[in-house]
């Protein structure tokens, strides 16, 4: 045991300063796609939508592109399909929002005017119960990674709890398969109020690449979802951000809007 003790105390600090300091993702990290809604070229738009498996990019009735970040798996195939198009890849870790509509770009009823901050009764500590409703297994490992020395979520007052009866947050992964619908509902009903439901991962947010009849297509088909954390899988920082958002200690991200082309074209004019 003394050997373990020595190993434990002789190492430098690994833990991230997040959320007090930013934790940048490595360049080239594929978090989600970004769309410049001002650019319109129906032919390119059609080609990009064709390359999107989960249907995050779809054409509206006027053949304009619309990007739903809760469906995006960050594969980057849309950017590859159209060179020099209105799409880019965002490498940021923070992805969570309390509204699905706020994570959509190109909608007529788009509403990302002022990112709201959840103000709940959970500002100091949060007890989390995780339920897997049909995930691919990677999200569970990212959630478990929150306990490793790099993230150490307990320093932020975040704890896992074994029973839904002690939980403030239901952290749900997976697109909700048929056999998991009932156990998921029962876990939710066992929780005391007030309670928060978080959909963790793109498949939990929207169903992602999975479709009926095997899956219901997202947690919000079964339970009222308070925070959406897209990501395939969401990185530990993305999960921390979502959990902090649920406790009113972080700001929502804005819609996956890309300003790059607009900016560069203006620079050219100058």
């Amino acid at each position: 045991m003394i050997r373990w003790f020595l190993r434990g105390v002789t190492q430098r600090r690994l833990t991230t300063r997040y959320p007090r300091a930013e934790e940048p993702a490595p360049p080239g990290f594929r978090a989600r796609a970004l769309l410049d809604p001002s650019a319109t070229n129906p032919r390119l738009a059609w080609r990009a939508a064709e390359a999107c498996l989960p249907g995050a990019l779809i054409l509206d009735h006027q053949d304009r592109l619309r990007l739903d970040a809760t469906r995006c798996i960050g594969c980057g195939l849309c950017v590859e399909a159209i060179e020099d198009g209105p799409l880019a890849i965002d490498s940021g870790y923070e992805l969570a929002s309390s509204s699905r509509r706020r994570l959509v770009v190109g909608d007529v009823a788009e509403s990302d005017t002022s990112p709201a901050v959840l103000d709940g009764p959970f500002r100091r500590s949060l007890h989390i119960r995780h339920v897997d409703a049909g995930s691919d297994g990677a999200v569970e490992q990212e959630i478990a990674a929150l306990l490793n020395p790099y993230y150490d979520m307990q320093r932020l007052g975040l704890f896992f709890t074994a029973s839904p009866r002690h939980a403030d947050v239901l952290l749900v992964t997976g697109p909700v398969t048929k056999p998991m619908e009932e156990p998921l509902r029962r876990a939710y009903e066992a929780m005391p109020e007030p309670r928060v439901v978080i959909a963790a991962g793109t498949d939990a947010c929207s169903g992602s690449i999975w479709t009926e009849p095997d899956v219901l297509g997202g947690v919000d088909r079964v339970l009222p979802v308070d925070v959406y954390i897209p990501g395939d899988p969401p990185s530990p920082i993305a999960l921390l951000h979502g959990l902090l958002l649920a406790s009113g200690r972080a700001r929502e991200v804005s819609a996956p809007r890309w300003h790059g082309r607009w900016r560069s074209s203006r620079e050219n004019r100058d």
Partner: protein
Amino acid sequence: MIALEDRAVEVGALATELKQLDGRLMVLFATGSAGAQEELCALVRAGDAVIKLRAPVQRRAYPAVTPMVPAAHWFEREIHDLQEITPEGHPRLEPLVRHPPEQRELELPEEEDVRLAHRGAERLAGPGVFVIPYGPVRSGVFESAQFLVQTGGEDVAYCAQRLFFKRRGAERRICEVPLELAVLVAERVSGTSSVAHALAFSHAVESLAETEVPPRAQAIRRMLAELERLYNHLEVTVRECEDASLSVGHAQFAALKERLHRLAGAVVGNRYLRGAVIPGGTRIDLNGPALDLIDATLSEWEREWQRVLAVLLRTDSFLDRLVSAGPLSEDDARDFACVGPVARASGIDLDTRRDLPYDGYPDFDAARHSDGDAMARMEVRFREVHVSLELIREAAASLMPGPTRAELGPFTRQSALGAAESARGETLYWLEADGERALRFCKLRAASFMNFGVFNRVFDSQVLTDFSFIEHSLGLSPAGCDA
């Protein structure tokens, strides 16, 4: 490309034929849509060959194979559930895939029933014997699966595993979506084995189109596949430390695992290496800085790993829990056609990377152990970590300039088998082409599907407190099993 020896047999003779081949049953499935002529199809590894046995089914029933070939037990129940073809005389024809959501009691056959032997069940009755329905929502951050544990308090009399809570219909999706996007589905069957699933699927597609993968792409594929093996083996180690309440060990191994995911995120752009492997090659290329990063990270990583591992292997409280826990005999591992580290730890010599060679793997020593207990499975993994690091270095050294993807031609063959060795074992995709650019049928078999089949046997006369040690030593993926 895997060469198959095709043989047609009578459905009544399928069991004896399989028995006579005396090989390892890789997969058994039924093809053909309802109404059309259904055909049972078995792929068997016998000696150095892969033999495909085909047997047409009449009147939606046939004599079950399981009584003679136990490894077929889950396959036949799956066929019964999904295609409604009845294997007559199957010792346990309960629902496997399509079952009611939860079960709280065990239904065991009566004493002196032949079916008892198949289950390996020790029948226990009397006051004080009860069943713990554990799952599908389990305490802690785990994937959904249910275990019904029959116990008198300490000794596990019987443990029944119930899976398929997570079935998302991956086989259906792979055929539905455009061919160039199907690999994205394969990557998400078992999210922690994305590379292995993408590889097995790509191998099958490349075989259908008879496309050769460029050498540079092969080397990159090997590097990614071995990196994936590293973090999966680390995951098992982390879980075992957690079970042993070894907090410092848990933190140290979890930090080592995190470093690998960060490396993956930096080189591929995804912490689980998704979006790298595609049919025909790889989507990404590894340039100089990326290779330097891999080399530098892994050299430091290996030193640290060896230091922590040395401490772990001298920690008696850890070893005590694993040695002799959850033994799997060589006979059981063979009868139920286990794969991967689980099979290798029970003395079976198999490794897809060597047996069905792909992507230019060089010759290497497959780690093996003869004890068959939880510790043996861990030791096999520890040795494989070492082998994987060597293989990554070898692949990096063999990177030659050149293209990383070959144009995928039209399909020239009707059907093909693709295989890859994930961290959990042999992963298979059987694909049937529909014309030149589409798929008609897909049967995928993850390693965990085979290894979950022996879950109850591994618990034979074990104690309840060892449950999580034994479970984690098997390193199973419910997501992969359920697909």
